[in-house]
């Protein structure tokens, strides 16, 4: 497996979508190639960096408006 091929397969690898023989070739290449190991590590870091965009704040006014809507809905169920 060439480095360029490994890089193309990184997501399939992380998703567990590689057929067993290809997964083996991937692991064998990784064991011997520091650059590709660093690349895989960078991809994992990227994924968790994107995950840090998660945050769930709702403006208090918006929340109040929704709860009012819920009360209205409750008193007039469709």
């Amino acid at each position, binding site marked *: 497996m060439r480095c360029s091929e490994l890089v193309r397969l990184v997501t399939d690898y992380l998703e567990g*979508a590689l057929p067993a023989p290809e997964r083996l070739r991937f692991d064998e290449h990784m064991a011997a190639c520091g650059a590709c190991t660093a690349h895989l590590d960078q*991809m994992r870091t990227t994924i968790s960096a994107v995950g840090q965009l998660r945050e769930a704040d709702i403006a208090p006014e918006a929340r109040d408006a929704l709860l009012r809507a819920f009360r209205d809905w409750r008193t007039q169920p*469709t």
Partner: protein
Amino acid sequence: MTSFEPPVQQDDALVIAALRAGNEAAFSQLIDEYNGALQRLAMVYVTDRSTAEDVVQETWIGLLQSLPRFEGRSSLKTWIFRILMNCARSRSRKDSRSIPFSAAFTTDDRDDGDPEPRRFRPGWLPGGGHWLHAPTRWQHDPEQHALSVETRTAVLLAVAALPPQQREVITLRDIEGFGADEVCNLLGLSDTNQRVLLHRARARVRRAIEPHLAVSV
């Protein structure tokens, strides 16, 4: 594509029953759980924050209105996000400033077919397919430390700049933590297509944050 739908959770049935019974705390909890995620996904389709907020409000109202008709054929989560996408779809038809929804779904994301250009020796040279500049380990572990404001901004901008389908997929998968099956289901993608879009999206974001995390030698 798989037509796998996660089975309706027992929890879902309880939440639905509580909502139908008019339990305000249940609704409030649902808002806490999903509002942020809905807001971020809405930003995939409309350009400004306040329009996205409107879309999310419409989604919650839409949920209340269709509550009597919810049959539990999909999970509550998938159902809520489907309502959001319908709201975003009709909003974007009305709002000329936003990305046309048709574009979000017909844009050919293949225009950036190689997300890793010029990183390898050409295949016809000796040593073809090997790194031109070997990547190095980044000296940062976001699981241990929060990102700096600069890096966080770079991630945010990189995601915002992605082609629409890639943005949808990476938002749902890597920000909201949806499973691959849920995303295929929600967006009507095949497994393979979902992975291709995810791969390109991640590769682009990686490239965008590299200058922030690579250690200068």
